[in-house]
């Protein structure tokens, strides 16, 4: 009898060892120096357990998880820069192997990272957004590494522009913006010329262009609203232009209401665009990449998007078909709107954050990573190759190297702006932002009026504001 019991036990045991061999452990709970490099399941990360007592100099392989959002074709320039930094850092730090994990932007920001933060098992290095709903929230919960000492040590602090606002809590810096961006109108100069239209630099010209194009069967604005953050970009600028003061910070301290006449007016304008058919048909089923594709294929004449998209129109970009035929401007002044009409949305909101639970090896890796990514060379490459505005101070000489006309237009637009405001999604609470997306989709689907949209969002805002 014993023997037979053993057979079963052995079977179960064999199975579980098999699984153990194939399965994986969490980064920091086992020390397995033999991190396999095969791409199979066994290639899981196994950073050595932290043993601060024995900082042996011998090369012991360890891995550092790195979550990035540079997946897919349109992000290839950014990915190339990251890859180079990774390679360089691995060469500098003995034993280091980065484990790259690419996740789609919105999925990372709104699903994966929040879940990992709650669980406390975030990657060691990860793409991070600034603001109350992201970086500051995680910093408060003690999940983020305080970067102030590292910046001091690497003497980097003064090299950055004034970009840490959305990453600073109690005077400590918790994230490093990789660059800046602004949101504005890309338009296809060829389509405008062929149809005898003036560039959409004034509101009248923009509306006239939209009406004319619509009549000719060309989509005026490429739009993709399956994910609410995409149409929210235009909404954000409309809000900034309609609200006289206090946008967006007034939303969380209660001095600005979502159902105020100014904000409702902005939503009414948006709804007006929808009703006139200025946007892509079936936009609620379109993804962000669809939007670029439509514009890139010359099927749409304009596109409201972030300046980061400019690299797609380079000679070797995804939308190379319209290379040289694209111009970038700020949204023209809106008549009868209460806000500052030369203001633009500008953000230094996206960059990298680091886990607070690093061991010594990992910390060394992080330092080297920061040093290799945040320097003049990579910043300039980001600007010239990828159209990302630098977050660090670049010399005039370096800036002179910008040859891409589109990037120049972005820089000029930035300079010409009277003032700037950050995107409300870096200020309002996550639940509020989700409600804005939800309600905007309802507005687009004609299931809610602008007033209802404002009321519904304000209701969530009130609840969230009361939580403090």
């Amino acid at each position, binding site marked *: 009898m014993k023997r037979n019991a053993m057979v079963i036990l052995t079977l179960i045991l064999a199975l579980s060892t098999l699984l153990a061999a194939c399965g994986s452990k969490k980064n920091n709970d086992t020390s397995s120096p033999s991190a396999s490099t095969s791409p199979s399941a066994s290639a899981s990360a196994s950073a050595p357990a932290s043993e601060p007592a024995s900082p042996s100099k011998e090369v012991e392989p360890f891995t550092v998880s790195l979550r990035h959002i540079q997946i897919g074709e349109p992000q290839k320039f950014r990915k190339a820069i990251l890859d180079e930094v990774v390679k360089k850092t691995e060469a500098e730090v003995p034993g280091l192997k980065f484990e790259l994990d690419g996740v789609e932007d919105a999925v990372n920001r709104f699903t994966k990272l929040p879940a990992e933060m*709650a669980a406390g098992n975030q990657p060691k290095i990860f793409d991070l957004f600034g603001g109350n709903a992201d970086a500051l929230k995680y910093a408060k919960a003690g999940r983020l590494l305080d970067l102030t000492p590292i910046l001091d040590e690497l003497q980097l602090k003064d090299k950055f522009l004034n970009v840490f606002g959305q990453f600073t809590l109690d005077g400590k810096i918790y994230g490093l913006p990789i660059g800046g961006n602004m949101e504005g109108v890309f338009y296809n100069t060829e389509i405008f010329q062929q149809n005898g239209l003036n560039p959409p630099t004034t509101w009248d010209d923009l509306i006239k262009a939209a009406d004319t194009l619509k009549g000719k069967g060309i989509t005026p604005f490429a739009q993709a609203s399956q994910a609410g953050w995409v149409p929210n970009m235009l909404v954000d600028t409309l809000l900034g232009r309609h609200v006289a003061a206090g946008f967006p910070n007034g939303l969380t301290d209660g001095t600005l209401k979502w159902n105020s006449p100014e904000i409702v007016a902005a939503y009414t304008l948006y709804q007006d665009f929808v009703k006139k058919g200025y946007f892509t048909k079936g936009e*609620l089923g379109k993804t962000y990449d669809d939007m670029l594709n439509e514009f890139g294929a010359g099927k749409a004449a304009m596109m409201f998007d972030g300046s980061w998209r400019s690299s797609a129109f380079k000679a070797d970009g995804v939308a190379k078909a319209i290379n040289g035929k694209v111009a970038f401007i700020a949204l023209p002044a809106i008549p009868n709107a209460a806000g500052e009409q030369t203001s633009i949305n500008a953000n230094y909101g996206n960059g990298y954050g680091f886990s607070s639970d690093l061991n010594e090896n990992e910390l060394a890796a992080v330092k080297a990573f920061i040093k290799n990514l945040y320097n003049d060379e990579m910043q300039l490459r980001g600007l010239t190759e990828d159209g990302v505005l630098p977050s660090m101070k670049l010399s005039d000489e370096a800036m002179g190297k910008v040859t891409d006309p589109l990037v120049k237009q972005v820089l000029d637009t930035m300079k010409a702006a009277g003032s700037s405001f950050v995107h409300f999604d870096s200020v309002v609470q996550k639940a509020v932002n989700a409600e804005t997306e939800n309600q905007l989709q309802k507005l687009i689907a004609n299931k809610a009026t602008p007033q209802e949209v404002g009321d519904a969002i304000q209701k969530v805002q009130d609840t969230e504001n009361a939580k403090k």
Partner: protein
Amino acid sequence: MKNTLKNPAVYLMFIIPTITLYGLFFLYPMFSSVFYAFTNWNGLDETRFIGLDNFTTAFGDESFRSAIFNNMYFIVFSVGLQVPIIIILALLISNVKKLKGFYKTTVFMPSILSTSVIGILWGFIYDPDIGPISAFLGFFGLDPIYWLAEPKWAMIAILLTNAWQWVGFYIVLILAAILAIPKEIDEAAEIDGANATQRAWYLTVPLIKPIISVVVMLSIAGAMRVVDIVLVMTNGGPAGSTEVMASYMVNKAIKFGDYGYGTALAIIIFAFALVFTAIYQLTFGKTERIEY
């Protein structure tokens, strides 16, 4: 001899692994859910006991109410429309002489595929620009339908996809029951002059009532459980029009780390499932076992 089967050590050896797993992954989550449902736990901030707040929030939430209705659509569609079609197709297959095996094998095919792959596949079929349905409509000069982009179509699109996946599975279930009916009964009726339709309706259908009841039950359970296909095809959109209870719960809990609220939603889903099962069992499900 009796002692052999009364050895407590052996008994425990067989029972304990199962009980441990079951306790840890079923009972413990179940009971901890009940606890969390009354808190505001989100993994980051301090956890407080907040009474019934989560439940009042849920029912006060218009999006959740519409998610409940969408689950109801699933039930109505799968029981009201799918089941009759399933029965008719199963009867047809049982009556043909040639190709029976071919039909059975083919109709079952979608059921072995993963829902997520089916979602991707059908997302493609529904694509307004390049999908075949659009091309088909274009044949007749009709405009493409924006299946997954328009609130009025999105739910129908998902229901159709779901039907495509599962109808074959249920057909095979019912077919098995039909084929288990002794041949003599059918032959006797044929001799008595009943035609095929009459025999199917008056003879076969009553005899397979128990399995139809099982199919209805499974359809209801499936409709309460549905989530994968929604997450993959629309993620609840456009504008929340395809959100079901489970997708809403998953999004709330994971996206906002609002675990307290999420578990409250889970309990509500469980309650709905229980109520529907009970109602069904007490009304239509009360079929007796049939002896041939």
